[in-house]
């Protein structure tokens, strides 16, 4: 890029700089290399008198345009002057220019930015207006005009460059100041009588250090390029005042026909310097912005080979889906963390199975793994999920790759998510989005798909579906958006619908309508449903059976009515008691003390033990197995009989 006045904004909300960040910067390879290069270059420039191998102006016409060699490491120019020495002396011009420009940039940018962010009100408006104006000025015209006033004056151009670029830093400084000001600890400090000046020094400035460094290194790169360009054009730092990188390239330009080499060292040096400033700035940004690197996926414990799973010995009609020993791990800095362990359940065609548990129990992970949509870093490491569609071979969902899932998602298994609004593409009209999915699964013309889309919107009981089809997602209410999301899930006529907390984000009245819709659709379309929820009311409303999960494990599985009437696991029992639908007016709603432990902090033995009122010493010993009861009931509790007897 030629004269670039662009410095990309750093995210305005940057956490306080801590020592560990700088240690991380130290560890980032390229950032460290760039910093070292810049330091070495600065040192060599300052001590050029002692470092340079020769006098930069000493001519030796006999050795003109000599290539690199022992006498002249980087060769000589047209007058036989040593290129390396001239390069080092030329760096002085660059260094001084950068210092001048950066000084103006920082002083103006930080002062005005902090003032605007701190005072707010009219001061903020005035300063922001000034910044917008400065940004809108054509930079090169300003520089040329300044050069007309002060011919050949590098310092003047650098001051102007600093002024017209300052808005970049100003905006960042303003943003950081405003976010710091709003934070509780700063408000507390003010209330406790700490003066404004000390708040500035103690709280605001440390937070600014990182973003300033990012902006400064990017701006310094711009200054190096601008100075080089102006000097190349002969508008500043002319040849008569000694070597500069720009005028050295200009001289090399005159002899490219005879000797192309002469242009190489200076150009490379200029590029390297700009590159080092850019890399250093990026490294500082990554470190201060607490940039989260995606962790590598854990390697599955077994190879993903056969897409079709061996058929189980058939007893009764095989279920549509049988999940068997499903285990999900996430990679973490300290090694893989198991979030779901050995989960097994099955879903018959047309059946509705609820998966219930508190948030953090792993139920959403179970649901998403069935569609191969685990978040980055998560993977199924053991178990199988055999899916038997009406037509086609049996598929093990844990062994499918992206291609394999392409034939399953939307067409065989569909997903409805918790956040109806954020599940829709904000940039396209609702009708178009539905039509696209319809056409994906059933080939037809665009016009026909548009008609089908409206019909589908009618199916999910949206009033005036034609108008809804023309709307954008942000124009829909939560309930409408969830109906659209259900329509999108139905567009491929799936055999299994995975509904992940489909009503949690909705108002109570809308919840009932959506549940009613799901129940009706299930009956009419003969679709099986896996309903993930934490709400017993939702479960009782439409599910036949329920799987209760706690801390990544199945703790109980039974028909919904059995579960209500006769819970056998203490967790199920506690959950039921905490159910607001069963609350008695005038009495405190019972709650379960404590929270679900996060993965990796599960207690040995029974994972519910720390919160369980039936806990006994033997609950801590070893893994508690799932034990069967009458019918298809299973419970993971060694005192299940006693709990049931209560």
């Amino acid at each position, binding site marked *: 890029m030629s*004269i670039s006045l662009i410095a990309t904004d750093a995210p305005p909300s940057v956490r306080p700089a801590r020592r560990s960040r700088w240690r991380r910067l130290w560890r980032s390879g390229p950032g460290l290399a760039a910093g070292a290069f810049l330091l070495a270059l600065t040192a060599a420039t300052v001590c050029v008198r002692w470092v340079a191998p020769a006098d930069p102006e000493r001519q030796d016409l006999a050795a003109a345009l000599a290539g690199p060699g022992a006498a002249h490491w980087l060769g000589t120019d047209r007058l036989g002057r040593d290129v390396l020495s001239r390069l080092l002396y030329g760096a002085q011009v660059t260094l001084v220019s950068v210092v001048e420009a950066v000084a103006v940039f920082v002083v103006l940018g930080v002062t005005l930015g902090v003032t605007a962010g701190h005072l707010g009100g009219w001061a903020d408006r005035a300063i922001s207006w000034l910044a917008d104006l400065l940004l*809108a000025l*054509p930079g090169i015209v300003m520089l040329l005009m300044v050069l007309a006033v002060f011919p050949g004056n590098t310092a003047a151009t650098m001051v102007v460059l600093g002024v017209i670029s300052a808005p970049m830093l100003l905006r960042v400084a303003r943003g950081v100041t405003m976010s710091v000001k709003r934070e509780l600890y700063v408000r507390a400090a003010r209330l406790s009588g700490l003066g404004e000046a000390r708040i500035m020094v103690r709280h605001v400035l440390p937070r600014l250090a990182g973003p300033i460094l990012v902006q400064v290194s990017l701006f310094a790169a711009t200054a190096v390029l601008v100075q080089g360009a102006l000097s190349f054009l002969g508008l500043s730092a002319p040849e008569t005042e000694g070597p500069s990188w720009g005028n050295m390239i200009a001289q090399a330009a005159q002899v490219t026909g005879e000797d192309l080499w002469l242009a190489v060292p200076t150009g490379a040096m200029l590029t390297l310097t*700009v590159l080092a400033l850019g890399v250093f700035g990026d490294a500082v940004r990554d470190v201060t912005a607490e940039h989260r690197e995606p962790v590598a996926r854990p390697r599955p414990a077994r190879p993903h080979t056969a897409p079709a799973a061996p058929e189980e010995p058939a007893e009764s009609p095989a279920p549509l889906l049988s999940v068997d020993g499903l285990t999900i791990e996430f990679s973490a800095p300290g090694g893989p963390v198991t979030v779901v362990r050995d989960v097994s359940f099955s879903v018959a065609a047309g059946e509705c199975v609820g998966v219930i548990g508190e948030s953090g129990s792993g139920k959403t992970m179970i649901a998403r793994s069935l569609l191969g949509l685990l978040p980055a870093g998560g993977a199924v490491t053991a178990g199988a999920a055999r899916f038997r569609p009406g037509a086609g071979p049996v598929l093990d969902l844990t062994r499918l790759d992206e291609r394999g899932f392409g034939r399953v998602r939307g067409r065989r298994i569909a997903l409805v998510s918790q956040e109806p609004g954020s599940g829709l593409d904000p940039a396209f009209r609702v009708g178009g989005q539905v039509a*696209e999915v319809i056409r994906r699964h059933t080939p037809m013309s665009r016009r026909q798909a548009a008609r089908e889309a409206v019909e589908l919107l009618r199916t999910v009981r949206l009033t005036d579906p034609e108008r809804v089809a023309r709307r*954008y997602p942000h124009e829909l209410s939560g309930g409408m958006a969830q109906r659209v999301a259900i329509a999108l899930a139905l567009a491929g006529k799936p055999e299994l619908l995975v509904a992940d907390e489909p009503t949690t984000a909705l108002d109570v009245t809308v919840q009932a309508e959506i549940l009613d819709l799901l129940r009706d659709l299930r009956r009419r379309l003969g679709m099986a449903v896996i309903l993930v929820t934490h709400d017993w009311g939702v479960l009782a409303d439409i599910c036949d059976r329920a799987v209760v999960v706690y801390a990544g494990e199945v703790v109980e599985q039974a028909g919904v009515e059995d579960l209500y009437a006769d819970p056998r696991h203490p967790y199920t029992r506690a959950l039921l008691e905490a159910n607001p639908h069963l609350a008695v007016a005038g009495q405190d709603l019972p709650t379960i003390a404590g929270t679900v432990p996060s993965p990796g902090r599960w207690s040995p033995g029974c994972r519910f033990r720390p919160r369980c009122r039936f806990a006994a010493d033997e609950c801590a010993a070893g893994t508690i197995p799932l034990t069967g009861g009458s019918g298809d009931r299973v419970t993971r509790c060694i005192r299940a009989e006693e709990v049931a007897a209560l």
Partner: protein
Amino acid sequence: MLRAVLRWLASSVALLFVVTALSFVLVSLAPGDAATSILSSQSGSYTPEQYARTRELLGIDEPLYVRYWHWLGELFHGSLGRDLFSGQPVAEIVGDRLLPSLSVIVGTVLVSAVAGTWLGVAGARRRGPAGRLLDAVSLAGLAVPSFWLALLVVELFAVRLAWLPSGGYVDPGRDPAGWLRAIALPVLTLSAGSIAFVAKQTRDSMAAVLSQEFVTMLRARGLPLRSILYKHALRNAAIPVVTMLGLLFVNLLSGAVLIEGIFSVPGLGQQAVTATGGHNLPVITGVAFCFTVVVIIVNLLVDLAYRWLDPKVRAA
């Protein structure tokens, strides 16, 4: 809607005032004036009487604010004044030189938008070594000074290989192929950095969009990757990228000043450099005026693109 248009008009006019007034003030601060430029180029030495007469002839003996007032009066009648030396109307000069400059700049913006977007999407998808390689290439592209790259490109493609002309400009109306060949090398040179710049912005923006919930839901509905990436994610990621394209355009106005000299493109940038040397106030102000108008138009286009890309802005 009407209010938005009025606000846009008001800020545009204010900006034009500031830029042109600033150029008047700055040029008047410069040591020497157009009269000294003319006289010293003619004979070298001159008497104070000659100097005073030349100033009067040029109309630069009046106070600055009077001259600015006259200039505004002329602007109202659609004139940008006359070149102090040649007497040619500035509007004509600027008009002649605008097309060569815009050819190079628009060409570069188009090339970088297409190539940069493609690279950026590729980079957002691939993490690991391939992504890091893309990063490194982007950074190198941003760091290479265009005037140095121009030298190498001319030497390679124009001198050694003789594939393309080393510069000049051909009127596209007369010879479209010749026009393309003439702007090819300047566009190539300016694109190196611009592509890298657009690629970096696209990559960051795409990575942010790809981590959003609606992308997971598009996958859950079985849409093909091509549609998810290039239709849905890119459309959402394009909003910040469009701002950056606007900034890029404005920056290329500056870049063109350098590149036009090297490739001898008879554009506005070259005109600005010559006029600055000769204190040719009407031409300098004319160029500044023209640059500012281009900037205002580009910003307007960016705003319109926003409305098209982001339905929420459209509603507001």
